[in-house]
C-alpha cells in the first residue's frame, strides 16, 4: 500500500511525537470549521520547519498519497478537511516572524503564523497588516493566502491578494519556487496572483512576505439602527454611492444583534437592523467625511445613530461584530454559515429575498455581513436532531446562492469553494471556464495530490 510505504518513510524522517498515526490522535484533525464534513486522515505530520514540509510533500508525491496542508482549520468551506486515504500536514509550528522591515513596510512570516500576530508585532513600528477576517485571532496566514481571505476592512484596503508580495511555495511534486517579490510592482505575468486563492490546489505556501500599512491617525465609527434589514441595505447603497470611501460598512440583523448581546455584550441598539460604518485616515479628512456621512445617514431615516472615536468603544463594537458567527451558537444548536456576493446596488432587494426565503421555508436566518462589498453572510439556524431540519437549511442556503448569481454576484466572496460549494461551482460555471481551471490544476499537479477534491472534483482516474 502506498500509504504504508509513505508512513514508513515519515517514521524515518520524523520524531514519534510529531507523526500522529493513532486514530484517536488524528481525530482532532478530522474536520475544520465546516464540521458537517469529517474525514479521518491516515496520519498527521506536525511539521517543524519549511524544509520538513518540502520533504513530506516530496514523499507524498513519490508514493502518490494526497495531502492537505492545514493551518488553524478555520475554513468555513471545508478547505482543510482531510482527504480520504491522505495525510494532513499541520503548519501551526511554522509560526515565526522571519523579519519585519519597517522602512520597507514589509514582513516575512512563516505560513502557520496567526493573522493577528503580524499586526501585534508591527504595531510598535506604527504599522499593521490589513486583512482582518473575523477569525483573525486564530486563523493562519497560509490559510488566508489559500482562500484570499477578506475581512471587514477590505472594503478600502482590498483582500489578502492585495497584501501579499512574495511567496515561497513548494509545488505538489516537491519543487520549490518563489512567486512575486518584495516590490509592490511586478514584471511579467502575475503568477503570485494566481496562487493566492487557489485553495491549496497548486502547492503549499511556506513563507509569506506581506506589505504593512501605517496605522491611521484617527478612526470614526458610526452605529446606525434601522427599522428593517432592507432599510439598512438601502442606506449602505446610498453611502457607497455618496463619494465617501469608508474603510468598512457592515450590517447585522436582529437575530445577529441578539446573539452578539448574549455573548460579548457590545451594547448595540435594540433594533431590527444595524449598520456599522467606519472612516479612518488623517484627522482633517475624517472629520470632514464624518460630517458628510452624518448627512447621508440622516437622510436614510435611521431609528438611532451613535458615533465614537474612542478606541475602547470601537473595540467593543467590533468584538460584537466579529464574534457574531460563534455567538449564533447561543440561538440554535446548529447553523450553516453562508457566503455569497450581490452587486452593492441590489443589497436591499437581496436582503428582502433572504427574509422572504427564511419565512417561506420556515428556517430562521441571522444576517451579518460585509455590506459595503455586497458580501452576504446569512447564518442559517437549525437543530440537527430534528428530522429534515438539515435538509431544509441546506436547501435555503442553495436558494440564497442561486439568488446571488441571478442578481449578478458570486457564490463566494471570501470563504472559497472547498468541498462545500464544489457542486455549485460546477452548476454555475461555464464548461470551458471550469475545464481551463482543471487544466491549470493538472499542469501543476498531474496526480491531484494537493488538497484533492477541493474546489474541483478529482478526475475519475485519480
Amino acid at each position, binding site marked *: 500500500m502506498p500509504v504504508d510505504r509513505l508512513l514508513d518513510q515519515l517514521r524515518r524522517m520524523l520524531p514519534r511525537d510529531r507523526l500522529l498515526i493513532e486514530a484517536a490522535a488524528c481525530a482532532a484533525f478530522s474536520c475544520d470549521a465546516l464540521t458537517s464534513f469529517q474525514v479521518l486522515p491516515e496520519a498527521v505530520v506536525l511539521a517543524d520547519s519549511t524544509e520538513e514540509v518540502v520533504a513530506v510533500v516530496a514523499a507524498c508525491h513519490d508514493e502518490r498519497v494526497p495531502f492537505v496542508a492545514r493551518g488553524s482549520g478555520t475554513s468555513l468551506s471545508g478547505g482543510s478537511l482531510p482527504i480520504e486515504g491522505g495525510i494532513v500536514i499541520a503548519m501551526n509550528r511554522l509560526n515565526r516572524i522571519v523579519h519585519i522591515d519597517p522602512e520597507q513596510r514589509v514582513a516575512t512570516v512563516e505560513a502557520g503564523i496567526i493573522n493577528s500576530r503580524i499586526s501585534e508585532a508591527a504595531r510598535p513600528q506604527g504599522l499593521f497588516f490589513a486583512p482582518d477576517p473575523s477569525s483573525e485571532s486564530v486563523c493562519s496566514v497560509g490559510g488566508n493566502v489559500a482562500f484570499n481571505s477578506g475581512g471587514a476592512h477590505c472594503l478600502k484596503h482590498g483582500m489578502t491578494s492585495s497584501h501579499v508580495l512574495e511567496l515561497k511555495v513548494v509545488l505538489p511534486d516537491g519543487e520549490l519556487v518563489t512567486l512575486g517579490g518584495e516590490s509592490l510592482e511586478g514584471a511579467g505575468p502575475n503568477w503570485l496572483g494566481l496562487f493566492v486563492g487557489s485553495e491549496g490546489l497548486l502547492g503549499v505556501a511556506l513563507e509569506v512576505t506581506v506589505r504593512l500599512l501605517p496605522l491611521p491617525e484617527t478612526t470614526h465609527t458610526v452605529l446606525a439602527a434601522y427599522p428593517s434589514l432592507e432599510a439598512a441595505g438601502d442606506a449602505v447603497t446610498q453611502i457607497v454611492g455618496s463619494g465617501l470611501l469608508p474603510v468598512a460598512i457592515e450590517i447585522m440583523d436582529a437575530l445577529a444583534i441578539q446573539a452578539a448581546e448574549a455573548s460579548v455584550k457590545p451594547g448595540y441598539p435594540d433594533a431590527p437592523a444595524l449598520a456599522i460604518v467606519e472612516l479612518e485616515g488623517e484627522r482633517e479628512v475624517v472629520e470632514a467625511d464624518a460630517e458628510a456621512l452624518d448627512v447621508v445617514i440622516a437622510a436614510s431615516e435611521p431609528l438611532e445613530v451613535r458615533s465614537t472615536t474612542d478606541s475602547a468603544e470601537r473595540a467593543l463594537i467590533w468584538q460584537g461584530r466579529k464574534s457574531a458567527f460563534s455567538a449564533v451558537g447561543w440561538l440554535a444548536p446548529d447553523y450553516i454559515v453562508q457566503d455569497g456576493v450581490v452587486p452593492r446596488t441590489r443589497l436591499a432587494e437581496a436582503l428582502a429575498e433572504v427574509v422572504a426565503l427564511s419565512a417561506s421555508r420556515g428556517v430562521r436566518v441571522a444576517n451579518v455581513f460585509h455590506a459595503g462589498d455586497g458580501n452576504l453572510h446569512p447564518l442559517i439556524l437549525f437543530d440537527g436532531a430534528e428530522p429534515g431540519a438539515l435538509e431544509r437549511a441546506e436547501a435555503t442556503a442553495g436558494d440564497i446562492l442561486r439568488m446571488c448569481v441571478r442578481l449578478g454576484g458570486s457564490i463566494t466572496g471570501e470563504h472559497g469553494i472547498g468541498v462545500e460549494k464544489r457542486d455549485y461551482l460546477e452548476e454555475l460555471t461555464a464548461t470551458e471556464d471550469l475545464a481551463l481551471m482543471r*487544466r491549470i490544476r493538472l499542469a501543476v499537479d498531474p496526480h491531484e495530490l494537493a488538497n484533492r477534491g477541493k474546489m474541483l472534483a478529482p478526475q475519475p482516474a485519480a
Partner: protein
Amino acid sequence: MSSATRPGDVVGTDDRVAALAQTLRDSPGPLLPRAAGTKDALSTPPAGASPLDVRALNGVIDYDPAELTFTAMAATPVREIVELLAAQRQYLPFDPPWADAGASLGGTVAAGVSGPGSYRHGGVRDFILGVRLLDGSGRLISGGGKVVKNAAGFDLPKLMVGTLGRMGILISMSFKVFPLPEAWTTLRVKTEGLTDSLTIATRLARSSFELETLDLDPPRELWLRLGGRAAVLARRADRLARFVDRPTEQLTGSDDVRRWQEARELTWVGPGSALVRVATTPGKLTALDAALAAAGAQRRYSRGGNAAWLAWPEAHPLTRLDQILKELRLAGTRLRGGDGPPLLGPPQGGAFAARVRAVFDPHDRFVEI
C-alpha cells in the same frame, strides 16, 4: 450562469471575437496582439511572429456609477474611460500611464503598468475584477466577475496582469473604481540628495499622511500629491510641509494637473533610449541609482520607490542593464524602444510559470515570454 455575472457576456456572440478566434486557429506562426501600440516594445512582434490587430475590440459594455464598477472591451482607450468616470466623480486610482497617448485598457493590463497614483490605493492588479480572453486554442474563457469580491475558482483576472499579450488575447475586463478626490495639490520638495529623499520618503511611508503619490526624482526632488476635500486640503498641505521640513513649493490647479500628466505620459524620456520599468524597493534604490547613473541613464522613481522608470541610453547594450538587474535581483520590463526580450533581470515564477503558461498556449500561438 446568468448573463449578469459574466464580464462582457455580450462578446460571447460577437463577430469580432469569432474572427479573432479564427485568425488564431489559422495562424501558421505566433501572434502578438496590438491595440494602440503605445508600448511598442511589447506590441512589436519578434522575427517569425505577426501582429494581431485587436483595435476592433472597442467600447464600454457596462458602467454603473452607483456600483463603482465597469466592464469594457480590451482595446477601449483608457482616456475614454477616465472621462466617462470623471463625469460621475469617479476614477481609476491606479492611474494608467499613457492615457493621453491613446493607451488601451487591455494593453495596460497586459503590460501590468500603473501610474504614480497607484501609491495610494494599489496598482492595476488590485483593481481588476473580471476578464474574458481567448486562450491559445481559440476558446473564449472568462474568470472573476463584476462584483468587488469573488473567491469562486482560480483568480484569472489577477493572473492576466503582466502577461504581455503572450498568454491569451484579452477581450474584455471589469474593474472596480473609487470616488474621485474633489481637489488636488502637490508639494515639490527640495532635498539634499537621493539619500535624504529616501529618508523622507521612508518617514512619510510610515506616517499617517494619505498621499496619492510619492515620487522621487533624483537627485534632489520629492513630489507629493494630496487629494480630497477642497475645504481641508490647504491645512493638510501645510501640515505635510512642516512634516517634511525641507524647502517646498506648492502646486495647485493646472500646475498640479500638468505635473502628473507629464509623469503619467513619461514625457521626460528622450528619443532613442529604451524605456524600462523596474520593480524595486526603497532599500535597493541607492544601489540601482548608482548603477544607472554610471551608465548615463535618465531615471525617476515612483510609488514610494517601488517603481523605477529608466531611459536606457542607445549607446549601451540592454544586456548590460539585464546584468545590473540580475546582480541586484530586480525584475524589469522594457516598454518602449530597444530590442530583444521585454523581460529583464532574473526569470520569474520558475517551474510554476512554465507549467501554467503551457495551459494557455499549448500550440505556440503566442510569442514566448
